[in-house]
């Protein structure tokens, strides 16, 4: 069995982005890291089914998401942790250090407090560079829903930013 050394190294360099995407799904850092680890092992285990036309990052994102909805999420719900507010997660609270720590922390709390799926679609499109069509395919939802979710995510964040007293962080 090949050891996939080069693939593993590439996955290691992708870890910060995979962890960030996982947090947008799980809402808490501990579940996110478990999910990332399982997903990476799955990527390695299914390397020969990877279509090179799809970047490793997107292939790994897809596997990670499928895993979250097919297995990890069920397990988390079973053991009772479920969807935890990321603002309650010590690692997320400590994610940002330095002078802009408070603002970043508040924003992370606000992102985590968005309705499920909103932070994910915002991350994919606004940060990871997915087109609406690519995001729709990745999420298995119509393109119009992508458009409306992103708008509503921004709208909710804009409301919260204009009312700083309501900060979730």
């Amino acid at each position, binding site marked *: 069995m090949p050891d996939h050394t*080069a693939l593993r190294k*590439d996955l*290691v360099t992708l870890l910060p*982005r995979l962890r960030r995407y996982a947090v947008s799904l799980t809402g808490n850092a501990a579940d996110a890291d478990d999910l990332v680890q399982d997903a990476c092992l799955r990527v390695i285990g299914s390397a020969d*089914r990877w279509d090179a036309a799809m*970047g490793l*990052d997107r292939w790994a994102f897809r596997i990670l998401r499928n895993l979250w909805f097919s297995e990890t999420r069920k397990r988390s719900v079973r053991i009772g942790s479920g969807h935890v507010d990321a603002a309650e997660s010590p690692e997320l609270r400590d994610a940002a250090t330095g002078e802009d720590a408070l603002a970043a922390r508040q924003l992370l709390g606000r992102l985590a407090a968005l309705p499920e799926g909103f932070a994910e679609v*915002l991350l994919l499109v606004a940060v990871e560079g997915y087109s609406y069509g690519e995001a729709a395919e990745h999420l298995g939802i119509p393109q119009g829903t992508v458009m409306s979710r*992103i708008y509503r995510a921004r709208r909710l964040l*804009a409301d919260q930013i204009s009312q700083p007293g309501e900060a979730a962080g």
Partner: protein
Amino acid sequence: MRVTGEHLSALLDGALPPAEAAAVEAALAADAGLRAEYEALLGADRAARDAFAALLDRPVPLGLARTVGTAPVPQSAAPGPRPPRRAPAWLNIAAGLALALVGAGGGFLAGRGTAPVPARDWVAEIADYHAVYAAQGRHLVEVGAAEAAHIETWLSEQTGVVFRIPDLSASGLSFEGGRLLVAAGKPVGQLMYRDGAGRVVALCFLASALPPTEGAAPRDLGAFDALVWGREGARFILIGPEGYPALPAIAEAAREA
């Protein structure tokens, strides 16, 4: 057309067809209320990006990096009957991957791919660490350069290697701080330096009973170049980006420190 918030948000993403985008822009120019809404959405978008960027700065847990880097893949992680084996796809994706890595902020890591990989030893483990830590922005080090004296005491005690932090400023490197790692089951001291372009060079050391070496021997670690040498009671490795021209001179300066 009636311009909605969804249109404004999609305009921000460049997701509208050209004719629709032009119509929305015209409406924006004519309507102060729409402009205010667009600014609000833009502000929210900027804030969200900043928050997501902060998430990227979190240090990657070493256990996770090591599992992904080296742990055996359980059978359950390779499900189902496999289709006939083709050429491993990852051999062919260097270009796409390079783009992805540049996007991740790992600029100088982008050249990694299918380079020869040495047998696993402490040097290879250091390379794994370097792949993780050199990509860090704010969390490059555990203890910052401001506490240089503490770093010398702390890492000397932990590793059993008495050392001085080399001043490599003549080679254009500024000392950023240090970390304690574990490789081959031993504590390893890691001193991090950065050059003017933000590239990271690390000097690592661990206690060793091996005899001193005459000079520094180069090691090809794929995406990184390294030089390894030994002095009485210790082994050192200097590791930096692939093709980093000053590495031999820096190693010389470090050995003399």
